């Protein structure tokens, strides 16, 4: 198990490195920050001076190397707009993102998993079809469409809830709801297929043959075996919630990490973008590692040696 986690961790580091490098390169190749920040008709000398002061005239690899060295020292750069430390800006926006992500995650679990289990236990019945229809709908509807729809209905037409902003609990309801619908739909679908796969296994019938009532078979033998893939998906979803709230935060003007990243990209505010990306990548990778560890801990087959017995 230790060896397994070690190799996973090394791979995680490599992933972070690749993502950061990729973002670094793309940002510098896709538009000139100097032009964005100073405006297009600034005099060329001003632009050149700006570029030199930010080190943008050096070759790419040299910039990247310098960036890596700075990171090791804890220096993540400053915003080109107002000079404040990039990482601090990012960290300040995390609580807002979490205020959406955590409730949404909890609701995903509370709605999605039971729905999926229920659908699996009543396969091909009308309950199953109903749950699955909702699941498909929730899954395919893009989050911004859903968000805008909800705003249209609840904020504009009915006036019950505000359409955006960050002032109170009622401002969080619509964004959380938007995030929940998509997540619960996905979770329900995966839960259902994981349960169905387990229910089709020979040991389920053998457990019934032992004399266990169906409820006992489901709880003691089916759920524990179906749980692992569900844990994996749920864990990955959590990582995604942190990163993917981008769209929802933009629609609802929610000052989280996502919205910060989007505006920083638009402004070519390089350091902020990179800091945000680094944070998002690390959190996703860390979530994956935790999920891997849980899987390893709970699946006896992964813990034992391979090739011992057939």
């Amino acid at each position, binding site marked *: 198990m230790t060896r397994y986690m070690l190799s996973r961790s090394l791979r995680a580091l490599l992933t972070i490195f690749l993502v950061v490098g990729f973002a670094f390169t793309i940002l510098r190749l896709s538009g000139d920050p100097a032009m964005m920040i100073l405006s297009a008709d600034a005099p060329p000398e001003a632009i050149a001076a700006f570029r030199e002061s930010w080190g943008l005239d050096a070759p790419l690899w040299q910039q990247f190397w310098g960036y890596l060295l700075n990171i090791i020292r804890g220096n993540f750069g400053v915003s080109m707009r107002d000079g404040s430390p990039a990482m601090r800006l990012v960290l300040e926006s995390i609580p807002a993102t979490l205020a959406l992500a955590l409730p949404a995650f909890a609701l995903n679990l509370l709605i999605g998993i039971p729905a999926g289990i229920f659908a699996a236990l009543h396969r091909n019945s009308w309950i199953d079809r109903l749950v699955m229809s909702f699941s498909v709908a929730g899954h395919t509807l893009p989050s911004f469409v859903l968000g805008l729809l909800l705003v249209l209905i609840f904020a504009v037409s009915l006036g019950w809830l505000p359409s955006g902003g960050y002032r109170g609990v009622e401002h969080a309801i619509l964004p959380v709801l938007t995030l929940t619908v998509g997540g619960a739909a996905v979770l329900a679908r995966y839960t259902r297929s994981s349960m169905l796969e387990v229910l089709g296994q020979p040991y389920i019938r*053998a457990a019934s043959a*032992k*004399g266990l009532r169906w409820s006992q078979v489901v709880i003691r033998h089916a759920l524990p075996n179906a749980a692992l893939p569900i844990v994996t998906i749920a864990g990955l979803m959590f990582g995604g919630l942190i990163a993917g709230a981008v769209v929802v935060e933009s629609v609802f003007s929610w000052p989280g990490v996502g919205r910060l990243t989007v505006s920083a990209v638009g402004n070519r505010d390089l350091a902020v973008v990179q800091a945000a990306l680094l944070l998002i990548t690390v959190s996703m990778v860390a979530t994956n590692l935790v999920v891997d560890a849980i899987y390893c801990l709970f699946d006896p087959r992964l813990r034992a040696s391979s090739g011992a017995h057939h």
Partner: protein
Amino acid sequence: MISTATDSRTLLNISDLRVAFDHRGYTSEVLHGVDLHIAPGESIGLVGESGCGKSVTWLGVLGLLGKHTQVTGSVKFQGQELLGLSDTELSQIRGRKIAMIFQDPSSSLNPAQRVGAQIAESLALHRDLRGAQANAEVLALLDQVEIPDAKRRMNAYPHELSGGMNQRVMIAMALAGQPDLLIADEPTTALDATVQAQILLLLDTVRRDTGMALVTISHDLGVISEISDRVLVMYAGAIVESAPSQTLFTGAQHPYSLGLLAAMPVLNAEVHRLTTIRGSIPQAGQLIQGCRFEARCDFAQDNCRLSSPALKTIAVGHALACTRKLAA
């Protein structure tokens, strides 16, 4: 119908058991009226090829066939009618009175649970044994099924044990409930030849020691003859012949039984061309008016197409579903 003794000596009496599957509006009958009886402590074998219904019969008896099936007829176990019982009532019978072990032992055990715990679950369920008492009994059972190093092995997961070991664990689990009848569905098919011999010997020993009845289901006539006193041959959803072991192998009467026996290569005979049964097994739900074997039968007569012959006793303990005149 065979004249059955409905006295208290009969452990299990199945009468005209029919099973039909519903699939999207279509009902296809796969079991066409099975009759059989088992005396306490008896060992019978059910032999047949794929699709003949030998497993479906017992899954139907135990109510394990799932929702979209219709099971009709009569199944009397120790005088009690089993068909029509609710799932909760049947779960009192399963494991405690009638136990079943399955073909692939390694996938019939919960992969995420230690084998000792799985046996202990049966003990808690049927004999209300828990904790240290249960552990002691688990060890005793593992010894009974001849698993070496039982103390260590009871904490193993199924994938850490071989197929033969897992089958022993399944037998131990079945014995935990102290059943009166054990159904072994292809217990050795997935195992190596030398292990097969061990498991068959074990099943026989256990049966004699506990006095329980044993039903062995197999497609292998050799396995059946090893372990069963009486053999029932099934074809396409019905029993076509039933006889004591020795009688079947020396004096079988049904053309299908004869065909099966002739189709088996034998180790110590001179190599000869195997006699085969022409044609193939009818589709599961196919409606056939006459004898279901008629299309493949070398002895078929005109009346064979008109009605399906019932299982009739032709000699002591020997029943046959065929209109063929017996060889003189």
